[in-house]
Structures are given as structure tokens and as C-alpha cells.
């Protein structure tokens, strides 16, 4: 067949693939927002959950989501960034670091339900923390650690080693070099990793049902249970409690994730352009 004709056909098929993907993407977002956005108002965002979610708002779930995300980042970020710092700046590249890297890569790929199983057995049952924000946050932190370690490592490695050489040449110590040169330069990459992990925490459902639980109330402390927005949406949708509220919750959920994605994208591309 005429190669030019083949190319024309191929090109249109490929274009079709892109169009198909775009249509699917828009359909998903449109479907949720169309059915749900009209019900999202100030009362919805600040009202308590009533009648298992059939009426009322989703304020407790918003609080639980923020609580879970904040606590898990609070635990995972220092640990993850510290580990990455250690692996890149304080040790040489040897078998130990290779094994650790392989281990974190594997853990990053483990399905979240396995973390849920792990978290349920260890935190809820074995450590007797019961269904609580703490159990949920510890589980989420376990999930975030590999990703944060990996992205921080990549961000630090992206900083040219000549920078540290200049630092030593000017008489700076290792610590000064890390704090004043490497970290600021790697910060956008590190932040992106942390923020994307936050996005994952907000969307996580299976692991949280079994660790943070399904309580409908604003958690009074980290030892109380609380359902996140994603868990609430799951419950509303699956049990047919209220489709309207399900769509509305999904809308809030999606907009939250959208904002998180946009923020991380901006940091990655705007800041990077500014410094480099």
C-alpha cells in the first residue's frame, strides 16, 4: 500500500486514540461535577453528617481527611527526607544503599490493600489502637514513605555535585552545604513528592476503612475514629444511601485532588524555571 496513505490512516487512528482518551477524561469529570456541584454549598461543607449521610453535610469527613493527611505527612516527611538525605549525602554508593533502594522501589509498588491489611493487624489489633485517626495516619505514612524517599533522592541527585565542591572550596561544612545549597535547590522536587503523596492520602479508601474506621463524627482526638471524604463517598455510593450526596462528596473530593495536582504541577514547573 502507498506509504503516504498508510501514514494518513495511522495518523487518524492515533488522533482517534487521543480524542477517545480526552473524551473519557472529560466525561468522568463532567459526570461527577454535573450531578454533584449543584449540591455543594456552604451548608454542605460545614454541616454535620445526618442520617448516615442521607441528609446534612460532610464537615466531619473534611476534618478527618485534613487530620489524616496532616498527621501522616507530619510522620512520613521527616523520616522520608532524612532517609533520602542519608542515602545520598552521608553514605557511599554500596550494596547496602542498592538494597535499600530496591526495597523502597518494591514497597512503592505494593498494592494499598496490603498496607491496609498490615495497618489493620499491627495498629488496630496488635497495638490496640482500635479504629482511629492515628492508626489511619500511621498506615498512610507507611504508604507514603517509599514514594517520599524516592522523589527526595531524585531531587537531591538532580543538584549538580559541583555545587557541593564549590561549597567546600569556600570553606563550608557538609551541613552548611546541605542546608544552604542542596535543600533549597531540591525543594521543589521534594515538595512535589510530598504533595503528590498527600493526593494519594486523600484518595485512599480501602486502607482507611480498616484503620481509621467509619465514624460519622468529627474526631475528638487522634485516638478517635473518623471517616475521610473518600470513605464517606464509598459508603454513600455503595449502600445507596444518597446518590445526590454521593455525587456532591465526589465533587468535593475531585476538586480537592485537582487543587493538589495543580499546586504540585505549579511548584514543579514554575519554581524549576525560576531557579534553573
Amino acid at each position, binding site marked *: 500500500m502507498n506509504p503516504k496513505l498508510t501514514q494518513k490512516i495511522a495518523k487518524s487512528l492515533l488522533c482517534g486514540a487521543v480524542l477517545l482518551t480526552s473524551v473519557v477524561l472529560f466525561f468522568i469529570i463532567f459526570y461527577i461535577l454535573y450531578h454533584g456541584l449543584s449540591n455543594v454549598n456552604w451548608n454542605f461543607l460545614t454541616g454535620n453528617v445526618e442520617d448516615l449521610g442521607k441528609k446534612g453535610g460532610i464537615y466531619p469527613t473534611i476534618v478527618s481527611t485534613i*487530620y489524616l493527611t496532616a*498527621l501522616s505527612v507530619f510522620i512520613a516527611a521527616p523520616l522520608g527526607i532524612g532517609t533520602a538525605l542519608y542515602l545520598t549525602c552521608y553514605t557511599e554508593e554500596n550494596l547496602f544503599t542498592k538494597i535499600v533502594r530496591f526495597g523502597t522501589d518494591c514497597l512503592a509498588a505494593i498494592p494499598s490493600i496490603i498496607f491496609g491489611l498490615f495497618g489493620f493487624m499491627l495498629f488496630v489489633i496488635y497495638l490496640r489502637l482500635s479504629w482511629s485517626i492515628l492508626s489511619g495516619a500511621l498506615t498512610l505514612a507507611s504508604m507514603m514513605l517509599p514514594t517520599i524517599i524516592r522523589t527526595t533522592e531524585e531531587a537531591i541527585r538532580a543538584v549538580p555535585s559541583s555545587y557541593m565542591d564549590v561549597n567546600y572550596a569556600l570553606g563550608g561544612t557538609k551541613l552548611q552545604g546541605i542546608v544552604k545549597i542542596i535543600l533549597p535547590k531540591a525543594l521543589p522536587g521534594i515538595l512535589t513528592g510530598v504533595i503528590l503523596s498527600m493526593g494519594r492520602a486523600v484518595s485512599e479508601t480501602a486502607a482507611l476503612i480498616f484503620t481509621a474506621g467509619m465514624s460519622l463524627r468529627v474526631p*475528638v*482526638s487522634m*485516638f478517635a475514629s473518623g471517616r475521610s471524604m473518600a470513605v464517606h463517598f464509598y459508603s454513600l455510593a*455503595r449502600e*445507596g444511601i444518597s446518590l445526590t450526596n454521593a455525587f456532591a462528596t465526589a465533587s468535593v473530593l475531585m476538586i480537592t485532588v485537582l487543587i493538589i495536582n495543580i499546586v504540585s504541577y505549579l511548584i514543579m514547573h514554575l519554581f524549576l524555571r525560576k531557579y534553573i
Partner: protein
Amino acid sequence: MKFGKTASIFFIFITLLYFLTGIGAKSQKIVRLAGSTAFLPFAEKLAEHYMKTHKDITVDVQGGGSAVGIMVASEGIVDIGMADMLSLPKETDSLEKVVVARDGIAIIVNTGNPLKNLTLKDLTQVFSGKVKEWKEIGVNLSGQIRVISREEGSGTRKSFDQLILQSARLTTDAMFQDSNGTIREAVKSDPNSIGYISIGFLDSSVKAISVDGIVANNENVILETYKISRPIYFLFKQNPTPETKNFIQFILGKEAQKIIAGDGLIPVVKI
């Protein structure tokens, strides 16, 4: 100046820690319940009611199924385990038990299904897979019967197995959902399906069929003409906390039992 910077970071850190760990939260006592999804919505409603008059108590309710309730109650991870079973397994021997309500199990089909009644024998045959098509039991519906069941940890499932399947096994073709609500949703959308849920979960989105001519409703369960029913237990360790004891007494009181009766379960106390 440098000191100020470090100090302010330290200060923010401590505030965050304080807030995140809720060290400053007023001493709220928590009563934890977990277990039966059949009783879950009622437990939630009663918890809400209870907390209105007891501002210093938080009642946390989880689901998970009756087997979860038994497991976490015996481990002491929750204060009260909820189980809706005919007969409790021997793991509960060390626990205190009290019946808080009774509930029937309704067999449900899609609202488009012309079926109105089944004999117990037919039911067993359908759910054990011996009968595979709707036409075989005289229903004018083309296609295979799609059985939807609960998973094994469910009290509703266990009671169903004991009362209807008896010695037969559930068909291997059965599909599974994990709560009363999700079974109702599944049957609502699938015209060829048949499933079972707690009578307390019945609504107009699905159709409950009568068994051996007896309609599935609370009156018939009380009269014991509709025999497919089981009690709902609260299980707790001996020497429960005072808040737990108070909450259980509340559930057994007239006020709570009225709410239970009003919402579709059968009370155990004369109201």
C-alpha cells in the same frame, strides 16, 4: 536573629504537634462499637441520640460484619461488639451478651420480577444452585437466576445459612456483596437477581417475597409465623467501663427501644 528563626520554627513545630495529637482535646470518653451491618444504621442513630444528652461521651460505631464485632470485642479493642446471629460461636463464651433487638431476614428480588412467593424448599434449591433458571420455578422471567449473598463473616449470612440452606452449600455461582445496603443496591439494579437482607433494610427499591405464604414483615416475625429471623446481640467483656454500661442501659431503655421499633426493627422491651 538566627535564634529567632530557629525559635519560631520550633514554636510552629510544637503547635502543630499539639494540634495533631489532640493532647489538648478535652477529656472525651469514647465508647466503641463494631460489628453487624444489619444493626449499624440503628446503632448510629441511637449513638447520635445518646450524645445529644451526654456531651462528654463520644460513641464511635463501625461496621465490618458480626464476625468482626465478635473478634474485636473479645480482644478488647472495642467496648461493644454487635452480632446478629441465631447462635453465637464458642469464641463468645467469655463475653457477656445481651439481646437488644430482633430482626427478620427478607428474601428480595428486583421490582421488575413477577415472583411473589416461594416455598422454603424452593428457596433452598435456588440458593444452593440446584435450580438455575427462573422458568424452572415457574417465574415468567428469561435467563439465569443470579444469587447474591453476603460474605462468610456476616451474621445475616450465617443465620441465612442455618435457616434456609441448612445442610446444603451456597451455590458456587453466587456473587457477593459486603453489607445489607450493597446487596439491596445490587438487587435493585439487576433484574435477574435474588438476595437477602435484614427486614430493617427493606424499602421500595426492592421487592420482598413471602416465604411459604407468609409475608416478610415485623408483625409476622413477632408472631413467629415468619420464621426467618435472628436476635441482635451486644457483646462485651466482663467489667465494662461505666460509660459502656450506661450506653447499654440506654439501648435497653424505653426511649431507645421506641426508636428501634419506629425504624423497622423489633424491640425486646415492652414499649
